[in-house]
């Protein structure tokens, strides 16, 4: 606990949150280097940067979760040293975490009081806790049921609880860490309204994101971070292209050059596919879909609408309740994962660390992770190390995988190179269908371009490519057709140039017609609608 700081009320001009010269190293890696940042009450300050640029590290320092190696944090004119989140909270800093810091099996009220429970003699006074929740939710217009269990609440409401939790501690400076990743466009609008009203009440808001559009919509000031250092500051008027250049460091083309596609026969056909989650809720609900050879079909949708389960059900790691999956006319839904791979199904999982590779295995081993048991890599029960290594040398060259050696553990590679290992493994065999889930998540921009090119090349080879993405920019860049998924169903299939507004409405559950009616666009504008 830091001693009580002298009240800064006499010098209101001093009221601000100031980070200066923050440096943080993890071993040889410099996550933050000499970062300066200032936040005043009544403003929204955007912190923009790519995945891995060091935004979260900086915010974890500000919130007391990490201690800086150099630099200073000054709150309202008083220099502070935070040894833990409690210090930061006491200094008036609150955080809305990207991965909600809520205990699933606790109620809303229990989560809100955790850490400073009301009551006497160690016994909790829950009635008082409930009253406090109700008061706060009325004060800020964020209604929640204090007795609901977190695990039973939808994501948007969980985020509301997370915000209320920060406000309950009388935070004057609020950090929102990538808050939009899990929300529908409409929910994002709602969140922005909340952020604005907080600003108007005189709170200082830091909004962390890597999405340019959101920054321009809401920021009063923008600080761009690249490779752990401040790459520039900007106002809300700055163009997207210029912001992107600051963020990435060089000019970026946000589009992928690709030829008009020539769709062939249907190579992947899903009918009536239904999958049920462990808690009994239906993740994929009686879904029908066809993907043709030589086309890229993108499934757009907000995270948590069954896309992840659909992808895993396709490769066979998630149980299918009913329905059929056909690859090139063969029914594969009773196949094991191994048999599906042999049938020509390629798969790039959404979470590569979790499902895509074995971190402690070498690059060479991961490149044969799904073919190690077959010739030429194996002879009977024995592995053929020489062949495995020569294959690795070829793939590393072909896919430009940056690694010190083919014996390096994949866990030691950068996100982009890890993804290249996964893609190299899948694309180095003859495929009928490629399912790629969030293929560029957490990947640096240079690698994104490369990965997109390889996906398009695979399409041009006549493979049916199914891409699942929550990034509308990626969908727009890659798709030949876009299917929008909501609560386990495809609500409609539209052309690649459909407006963001229409897609947004569909992602919230509207049908194509409804979406276009309320978005007030004519069918001509959205050419190529397929339903």
């Amino acid at each position, binding site marked *: 606990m830091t001693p009580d700081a002298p009240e800064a009320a006499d010098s209101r001009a001093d009221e601000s949150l100031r980070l200066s010269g923050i440096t943080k190293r993890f071993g040889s890696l410099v996550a933050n280097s000499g970062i300066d940042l200032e936040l005043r009450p009544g403003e929204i300050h955007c912190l923009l940067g790519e995945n891995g640029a060091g935004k979260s590290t900086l915010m974890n320092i500000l919130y007391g979760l990490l201690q800086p190696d150099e630099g200073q944090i000054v709150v309202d004119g008083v220099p502070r040293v935070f040894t833990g989140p409690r210090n930061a909270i006491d200094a008036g800093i609150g955080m809305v975490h990207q991965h909600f810091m809520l205990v699933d099996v606790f109620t809303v009220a229990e989560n809100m009081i955790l850490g400073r429970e009301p009551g006497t003699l160690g016994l909790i006074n829950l009635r008082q806790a409930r009253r406090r929740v109700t008061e706060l939710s009325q004060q800020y217009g964020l209604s929640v049921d204090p007795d609901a269990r977190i695990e039973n609440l939808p994501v948007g409401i969980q985020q509301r609880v997370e915000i209320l939790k920060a406000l309950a501690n009388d935070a004057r400076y609020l950090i929102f860490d990538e808050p939009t990743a899990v929300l529908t466009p409409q929910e994002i609008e709602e969140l922005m309204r909340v952020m604005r009203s907080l600003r108007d009440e005189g709170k200082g808001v830091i909004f962390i994101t890597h999405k340019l559009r959101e920054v321009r919509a809401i920021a009063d000031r923008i600080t761009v971070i690249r490779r752990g250092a401040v790459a520039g500051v900007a106002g809300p008027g700055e163009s997207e292209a210029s912001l992107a250049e600051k963020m990435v460091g060089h000019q970026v083309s946000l589009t992928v050059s690709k030829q008009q596609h020539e769709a062939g026969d249907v190579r992947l056909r899903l009918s009536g596919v239904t999958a049920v989650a462990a808690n009994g809720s239906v993740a994929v609900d009686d879904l029908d879909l066809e993907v043709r050879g030589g086309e890229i079909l993108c499934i757009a949708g907000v995270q948590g609408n069954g896309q992840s389960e659909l992808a895993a059900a396709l490769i066979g*790691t998630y149980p299918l309740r009913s329905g059929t999956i056909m690859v090139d006319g063969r029914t594969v839904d009773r196949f*094991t994962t191994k048999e599906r*791979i042999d049938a020509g199904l390629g*798969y790039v999982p959404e979470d590569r660390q*979790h499902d895509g590779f074995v971190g402690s*295995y070498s690059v060479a081993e991961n490149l044969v992770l799904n073919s190690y*048991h077959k010739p030429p890599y194996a002879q009977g*029960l*024995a*592995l053929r190390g020489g062949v495995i290594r020569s294959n690795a040398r070829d793939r590393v060259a072909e896919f430009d995988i940056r690694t010190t050696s083919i014996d390096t553990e994949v866990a030691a590679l950068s996100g982009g190179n890890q993804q290249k290992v996964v893609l190299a493994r899948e694309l180095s065999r003859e495929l009928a269908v490629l399912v790629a889930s969030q293929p560029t998540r957490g990947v640096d921009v240079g690698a994104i371009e490369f990965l997109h090119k390889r996906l398009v090349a695979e399409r041009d080879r006549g493979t049916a490519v199914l891409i699942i993405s929550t990034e509308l920019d990626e969908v727009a860049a890659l798709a030949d057709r876009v299917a929008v998924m909501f609560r386990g169903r495809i609500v409609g299939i539209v052309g690649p140039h459909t407006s963001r507004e229409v897609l947004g409405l569909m992602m919230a559950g509207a049908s194509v017609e409804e979406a276009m009616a309320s978005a007030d666009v004519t069918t001509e504008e959205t050419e190529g609608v397929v339903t």
Partner: protein
Amino acid sequence: MTRSSWWTEILTTIAAIVLALIIGAVVMVVSDPDVLDKYAYFFYRPGDALAASGDKIGSAYFALLKGAVGSWGAITQSTSQAAPLILAGLGVALAFRAGLINIGGQGQAIWGAIFAAYIGFGVHLPLVIHVLVALIAGVLGGAIWGGLVGWLKARTGAHEVIVTIMLNYVAIRMLAWLLTTPAFQRPGRTDSISPIVDWTATFARLAGSQLHVGFVLALLAAAAVWWLLERSTLGFALKAVGANPHAAATAGMSVARTTIIVMVLAGALAGLAGVDAALAPSDSGVPVPLSNGIVGDVGFDAVTVALVGRSRPVGVVLAGLLFGALHTGGLGMQGAQTPGTVTDVLQALIVLFVAAPALVTRLLPFLRRRAARSATPESTGALT
């Protein structure tokens, strides 16, 4: 595995042994009233207390060393003690590599001993064939008991730790019950003891020593496990499942099948330890007849052997020899003024230090630059 990390692990292990010996010495001094009495007048005549302590520690550790490796007989006694530890340790190590914690060596070894002993005394076959049949039966017994765990885990997700612990006690009770049945109980006896195993089913030993087939089997098993882990497709899948079961499943490996195979193999290896207990000659040249304590604590000792051996076959052999020597030395201490059970304390302390490399580097800061990794998965997940 690079050379420097080999060194780190060897140094950490040696440091762990030294630390354990030091703490063991303290325990011995503190627990001996005669020595402790001398500390009452420590400031008056410190020499007395120090001499008594030194004498106590010195004579105990000397007796231990002499008992373990002081003669050819002692050395072969150590190898014969090491054999079941290595075998069961390999079973635990193999499971560790596949991400499974096999606490069930005890039960698996018991079934190995039951099957092997029954063939040994209940069936009469010619030389060589008899011992082979008994051996295969024992391996089968352990494999079934281990496979049951794998099957339950693969089929229902039951946590192997709970299942193995519970099945240990089921096996213990089954053995106790069997020893009351006419098929197993020695005629004319009312206590729980079986007939003596035929000489045709007894492990051959080098004349005049305790170096017997069991130790050779242990070395062969270690070599086989090494090949399996490092050079075979099954080992590739097994380690992948252990390191990241999700990625392994996504790459088409069957986690369920691998789990079952691993537990069958682990059970077979522990079963071999049981076979060794049932068929290896004791000092008198005749195997110890089946009784309730036939396999001792081999299942739990195996966990310590696998840990100290870093779950690698060579390491397991070395750790097995170390603990085998400790056991033998402990038995040799009977005459000394310190009870041989001190070796149980030493063994547990060594493992505790090996399991927490961070503690060793904290106590011995010169090792700090070489932070060693723990040999087991950090997390177990809840036991359900």
